[in-house]
């Protein structure tokens, strides 16, 4: 493997004598915080997955005792048979954990923290201590949410969307403390996201290394930056709404209480005004990292860098004016529905730009199928399916039929699992060496990839069919309906595939832990990548660079005729390169 050691600025051996607790627990180092987020959110991914398995058991084999379900208390599953009230807790907590505590922290908490300073060439976040608080409040939020599963009457029961008034009044939902803990946890999480986003935005704007102009930033940084803007503007709305919900629950206020003049739809407006930007928070970082990985794996500059940037920006902007597409049949003003439909459809345009640019990047490339690359290509393939199913729902008349059916469930898993999670299965091994100094196993990674890819499609593709048949979401027992009885074999098939999908994840789990301690020692730049982070040793040392690196070119100069290797790092100075004029100025 060729190295660029000649130009690489290997960090000096600054010995780090902070005590353990300051180094790994209450650390202000952005890399440690990213790693803390990684462990915590992988744990919650596991929790979310376990909840999904219980759901799938009930849906595939309604009313049968769940193997191992005997350990659950009587109030959830007497004799292992899941109760309806436990089932809706499962749905609610599965959605909540996956969205708020697994995918969002994985993408933003881990990679915004880890990558932004490394990729823009700075020593840490702008506000390291605020950053630490951002982790700890997310952690507290997670604990509160987890605790809510164990309180009497169980966890929140109104779906991850928490529609009022079901969520607002205890006599409607039957849950008390669980419902309140959900609101409290979400407020804490909102705080965490705001503190985090504030850091990412300031850092990206102000702390770029010399030469790192706006249009030399890797797309992952662009995506994380725009995501942070979405976060800083969207999460406060959710916090505000969750606070109102909490007050309805504990103080008896009437925001969402129709008999006293409150409005049920107000919650939906608030939630989705946050919620749609949120789903782009869940996909944009994935898109950014996939762009980096695909360019790297194709050994080619990203196709249409500038239009990729503008696509990210326009997706983020459009994301603010489409929230009503979740409410087409909610009784919302139908004229408003029309305008939300049009704005929603328009989002297909920047998404198309991104998709075709990824393909353009691969076109005439020299594709190396590493595990990150495989997962990144799968991301494109699967995100497109999810995105295209979004078009059906955006068309209001069709949505009237498929709203709140498994068609939606299929859509959301195609974008969230097929999209975000595949991107993460690519990103985790890609940056693993920079985090831990070791490589994850390639062969096992490939086995995990192929099995996941197959089982994932077997689980979620048939859900489109269920949706077309009118199979409602969030129902405990589909066999209650005559018209769904013929579909039970399909449900059973999905469930079995889901168990296999989960079992496959054990490979990842083992690979992750094994590599952490026993993996192959990582070289400095194992993927022959152009990013600034690869100029550091693996793992990246505390404080990153001894002297600030200088950036001479864009991030995707693969196969450049100027270099003999097929990559040309951003930090490598060629004789023809000029030193950047002092500081990069905004807008250049």
């Amino acid at each position: 493997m060729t190295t660029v050691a000649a130009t690489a600025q290997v960090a000096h051996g600054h010995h780090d004598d902070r005590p353990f607790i300051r180094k790994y627990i209450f650390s202000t180092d952005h890399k440690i915080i990213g790693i803390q987020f990684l462990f915590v959110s992988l744990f919650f991914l596991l929790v979310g997955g376990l909840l999904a398995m219980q759901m799938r058991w009930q849906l595939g084999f309604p009313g049968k005792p769940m193997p191992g379900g005997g350990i659950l208390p009587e109030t959830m599953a007497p004799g292992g048979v899941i109760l309806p009230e436990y089932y809706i807790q499962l749905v609610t907590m599965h959605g909540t954990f996956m969205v708020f505590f697994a995918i969002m922290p994985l993408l933003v908490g881990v990679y915004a923290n880890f990558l932004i300073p490394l990729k823009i060439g700075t020593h840490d976040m702008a506000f390291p201590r605020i950053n630490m608080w951002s982790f700890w409040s997310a952690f507290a939020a997670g604990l509160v949410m987890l605790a809510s599963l164990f309180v009497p009457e169980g966890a929140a029961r109104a779906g991850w969307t928490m529609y009022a008034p079901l969520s607002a009044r205890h006599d409607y939902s039957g849950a008390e403390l669980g419902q309140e803990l959900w609101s409290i946890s979400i407020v804490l999480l909102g705080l965490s996201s705001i503190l985090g986003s504030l850091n990412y935005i300031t850092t990206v704007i102000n702390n770029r290394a010399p030469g790192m102009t706006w249009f030399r930033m890797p797309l992952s940084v662009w995506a994380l930056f725009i995501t942070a803007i979405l976060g800083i503007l969207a999460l406060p709305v959710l916090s505000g709404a969750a606070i109102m919900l909490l007050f309805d629950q504990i103080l008896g206020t009437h925001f969402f209480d129709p008999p006293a003049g409150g409005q049920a739809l107000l919650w939906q407006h608030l939630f989705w005004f946050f919620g749609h930007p949120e789903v782009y928070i869940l996909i944009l970082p994935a898109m950014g990292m996939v762009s980096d990985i695909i360019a790297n794996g194709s050994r080619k500059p990203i196709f249409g860098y500038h239009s990729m940037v503008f696509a990210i920006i326009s997706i983020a902007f459009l994301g603010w004016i489409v929230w009503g597409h979740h409410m087409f049949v909610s009784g919302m003003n139908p004229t408003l529905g029309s305008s939300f439909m049009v704005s929603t459809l328009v989002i297909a345009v920047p998404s198309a730009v991104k998709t075709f640019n990824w393909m353009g990047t691969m076109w005439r490339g020299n594709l190396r199928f590493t595990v990150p690359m495989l997962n990144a290509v799968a991301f494109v393939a699967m995100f497109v399916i999810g995105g295209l199913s979004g078009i059906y729902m955006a068309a209001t008349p069709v949505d009237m039929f498929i709203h709140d059916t498994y068609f939606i469930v299929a859509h959301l898993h195609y974008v969230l699992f097929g999209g975000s999670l595949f991107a993460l299965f690519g990103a985790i091994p890609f940056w693993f060496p920079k985090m831990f100094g070791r490589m994850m196993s390639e062969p096992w990674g490939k086995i995990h990839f192929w099995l996941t890819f197959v089982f994932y499609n077997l689980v979620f593709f048939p859900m489109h069919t269920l949706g077309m048949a009118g199979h409602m979401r969030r129902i405990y027992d589909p066999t209650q309906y005559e018209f769904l009885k013929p579909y039970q074999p399909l449900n059973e098939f999905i469930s079995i595939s889901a168990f296999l999908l989960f079992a496959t994840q054990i490979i990842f789990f083992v690979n992750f832990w094994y590599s952490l301690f026993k993996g192959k020692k990582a070289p400095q730049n194992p993927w022959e990548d152009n990013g600034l982070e690869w100029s550091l040793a693996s793992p990246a040392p505390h404080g990153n660079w001894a002297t600030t690196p200088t950036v001479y070119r864009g991030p995707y100069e693969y196969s450049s005729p100027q270099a003999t290797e097929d990559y040309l790092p951003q930090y490598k100075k060629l004789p023809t390169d000029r030193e950047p004029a002092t500081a990069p100025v905004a807008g250049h």
Partner: protein
Amino acid sequence: MSWWLPLKGSTFAGEIDGLFIAILVITGIAFVIVEAGLIWFVVRYRARPGRKAFYTHGSTRAEVIWTAIPAVTMVALGLVSNHYWVQIKGRNSIPPNAYPIGIHAKQFEWQVTYPGPDGKLGTADDFTVRNQLHVPAGRPIVLALSSEDVIHSFFVPQFRVRQDVVPGMDIKAWFQATVPGTYELGCSQLCGLGHYRMRAQVFVHTPEEYDAWMKRAAKRAAQGEASE
């Protein structure tokens, strides 16, 4: 088990299915282009020793093409969908001669109020039946939806009609059944632990049958045995 949409049981089911198929075609084309392209590239451009990738930063022409085509398609799709939307859910879409039925949803049942022999809601001969919706075929029906407690959703797959029932709001929805038979009405908005069993039966009668049923039911109701 069918792999396709359920029976078309209402006047606008055909339109919705048509739109569904149109989108299926559009997205199908996009799907094939993307997936086939990906597979092709993966096979054709896999790394071979000694080869260097083609160095390019993009092409403005390609960029314009793949921005413009989706843009035009999406605007066209928006216009077409909106045309149907206005007919189906628009604010003036309810046919003036529609036959009124009241639906009151509560945890976890549907209370269906019929206008009685005089065909008007809110008069003395109205009567209420639990979990049974009887409608005549070939006649537009307008539902007056109200909720006792939380949000429910009125959904009959064969009619392709769905409307949330929101407490504090008086919402109207209409449809016109075309095929006599028995169907199911499901609640499709999570409304509590009994959500999954908040189900009612839907009977679509021929107009004559419906009149006969109405007479019988009204008589029974007058005798005070309304429900069931």
